[in-house]
């Protein structure tokens, strides 16, 4: 039931109660008023007869006509009054008494007419006593009656007050509890939600306005929770993007710095290369001497080390030995096969099991083939270096939402510890022995992939292996830019 209906019903009940009580009180007062008229008449009757007796006494004392006349006049009044409330007397005193008193009055009247006859006076007086006691009785009865009526009314009002208190109290309590309790619960949940707790819904009970409020409140809570969740997710993504951006920015800056240094070093390196080369040329042409072999050895070592430096600077500059710098369409499956062909000897030498799962229907990508080759060459070479002899490398290609081709290169090598993973794309970071790695392979790989609009991720677990995932867009907008 609706709260409005409940309130209507409660107020309706109170109005009904007031009307009933008012009606009863009115009826009661009306009965009392009627009764009061009767009491008055009964009193008159009693007084009339007392007058009759007073005149009777005077007549018997003085035997005067006036007294007899007064007696008769008052008797007449008495008779009229008795007749006037005859019905009431029948009701109060009974039919027999009424008839008896009528006869007594007739008798008394008869005797007053023959008052001078002997023997009649005694009869008359005894009859008068009967009538008088009757009149007094009547008056007394009427008084009792009205007193009973008053007591009744008093009780009636007492009961009414009692009933109103009990019933009204119960109704008020029900209304108060039915409205206040759900409101208090809603207030509590509101505070909880404000504090960020979206644990449970408000219990939905009944079918009133508060129920609709509870349903609406729960709906609001759901929407709020969804909004909060998507907000949190958005903030988290934003943080991730920001971190990624900072990382990319850092790598780009380091890459630029390294490239600048490489450029500056190349020229003096070229001079050393030529000078040492010239020495070798001259020695080659000269006659054998004690020192020729030793000098040739020294020069050879110098040229070797120049070559080492050259490898570093050339890798920093991402210089591709190939000349195909324009973009072309090609399949990454093809590229993977080419890279594996190129590394065939290393793979055979270490007896590595190669698992290939190349999706046959991947779309061709448009990119710089030479640079992409370098990316996979670096990653697969690293994988070969990482695994033990007889290890396994799995390479797979898949299509991601028709938009990108994903290449995953998984090895079962020793894996990369978490603190190292953060640094593997940084220039000059290497875990290989001194002289074995430049620490540039992966940073160049990263730089190329990002430059070509792709992405590269690493997943690794120590003792289980490492997976490199390269995502290349099918249509790259940022092609081969430096």
């Amino acid at each position: 039931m609706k709260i409005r209906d409940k309130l209507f019903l409660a107020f309706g009940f109170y109005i009904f109660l007031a009307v009933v009580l008012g009606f009863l009180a009115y009826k009661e007062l009306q009965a009392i008023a009627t009764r009061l008229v009767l009491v008055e008449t009964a009193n008159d009757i009693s007084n009339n007869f007392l007058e009759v007796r007073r005149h009777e006494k005077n007549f018997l004392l003085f035997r005067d006509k006036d007294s007899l006349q007064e007696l008769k006049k008052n008797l007449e009044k008495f008779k009229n009054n008795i007749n006037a409330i005859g019905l009431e007397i029948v009701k109060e005193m009974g039919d027999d008494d009424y008839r008896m008193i009528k006869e007594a009055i007739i008798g008394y009247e008869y005797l007053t007419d023959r008052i001078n006859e002997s023997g009649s006076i005694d009869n008359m007086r005894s009859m008068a006593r009967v009538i008088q006691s009757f009149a007094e009785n009547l008056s007394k009865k009427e008084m009792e009656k009205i007193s009973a009526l008053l007591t009744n009314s008093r009780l009636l009002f007492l009961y009414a007050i009692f009933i109103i208190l009990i019933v009204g109290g119960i109704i008020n309590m029900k209304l108060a509890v039915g409205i206040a309790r759900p409101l208090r619960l809603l207030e509590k949940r509101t505070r909880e939600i404000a504090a960020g707790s979206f644990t449970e819904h408000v219990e939905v009970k009944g079918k009133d306005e508060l129920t609709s409020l509870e349903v609406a409140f729960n709906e609001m809570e759901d929407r709020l929770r969804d909004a909060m969740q998507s907000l949190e997710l958005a903030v988290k993504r934003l943080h991730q993007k920001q971190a990624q951006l900072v990382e990319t920015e850092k790598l780009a800056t380091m890459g630029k710095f390294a490239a600048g240094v490489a450029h500056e070093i190349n020229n003096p390196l070229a001079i050393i290369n030529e000078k040492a080369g010239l020495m070798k040329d001259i020695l080659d042409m000269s006659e054998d001497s004690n020192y020729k072999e030793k000098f040739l050895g020294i020069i050879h070592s110098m040229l070797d080390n120049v070559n080492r430096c050259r490898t570093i600077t050339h890798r920093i500059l991402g210089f591709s030995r190939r000349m195909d710098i324009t973009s072309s369409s090609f399949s990454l499956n093809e590229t993977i096969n080419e890279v594996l062909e190129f590394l065939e000897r290393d793979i055979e030498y270490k007896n590595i099991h190669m698992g290939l799962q190349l999706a046959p229907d991947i779309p061709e990508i448009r990119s710089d083939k030479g640079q992409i080759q370098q990316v996979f060459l670096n990653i697969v070479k690293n994988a070969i270096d990482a695994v033990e002899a007889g290890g396994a490398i799995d390479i797979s290609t898949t299509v991601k939402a028709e938009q990108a081709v994903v290449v995953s290169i998984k090895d079962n090598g020793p894996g990369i510890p978490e603190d190292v993973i953060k640094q593997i794309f940084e220039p000059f970071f290497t875990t290989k022995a001194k002289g074995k790695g430049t620490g540039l392979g992966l940073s160049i790989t990263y730089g190329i992939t990002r430059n070509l609009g792709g992405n590269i991720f690493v997943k690794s677990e120590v003792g289980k292996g490492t997976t490199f995932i390269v995502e290349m867009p099918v249509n790259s907008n940022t092609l081969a830019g430096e």
Partner: protein
Amino acid sequence: MGTKVLIVDDEVEFATTLCERLGLRGYETRAICVAQDALPAVKSDPPDVILLDLKMPGKNGIEILMTVKNFAPEIEVILLTGHMSLDNKLEGIKLDAFDCILKPVDIKELTGKIDKAAEKSKLNRE
């Protein structure tokens, strides 16, 4: 008669040493270390192949490449530089440079490329 090679590089030590080494290998080599002198040298005695540095004070290597190719398209130019970006490389290829090599370079690789360029230059002339 040996292949005529002109080295244009502002690094004097590099240019002269390379000049000597190529001379030892039978090439007829000259070295120019000032960019502005490059064109007069080409005009006075046209070489078969030019080894051209890209970044020099005074004149950009790309400009020299353009003028040389305008003057004598049959001369082949190998860009040999310590500073090479992809943009330079692209531009060089567009302007018909024979090859782009990043310093330092192995002498055998270099002579191999010079020989090929000279062959092409000879074909150009015929």
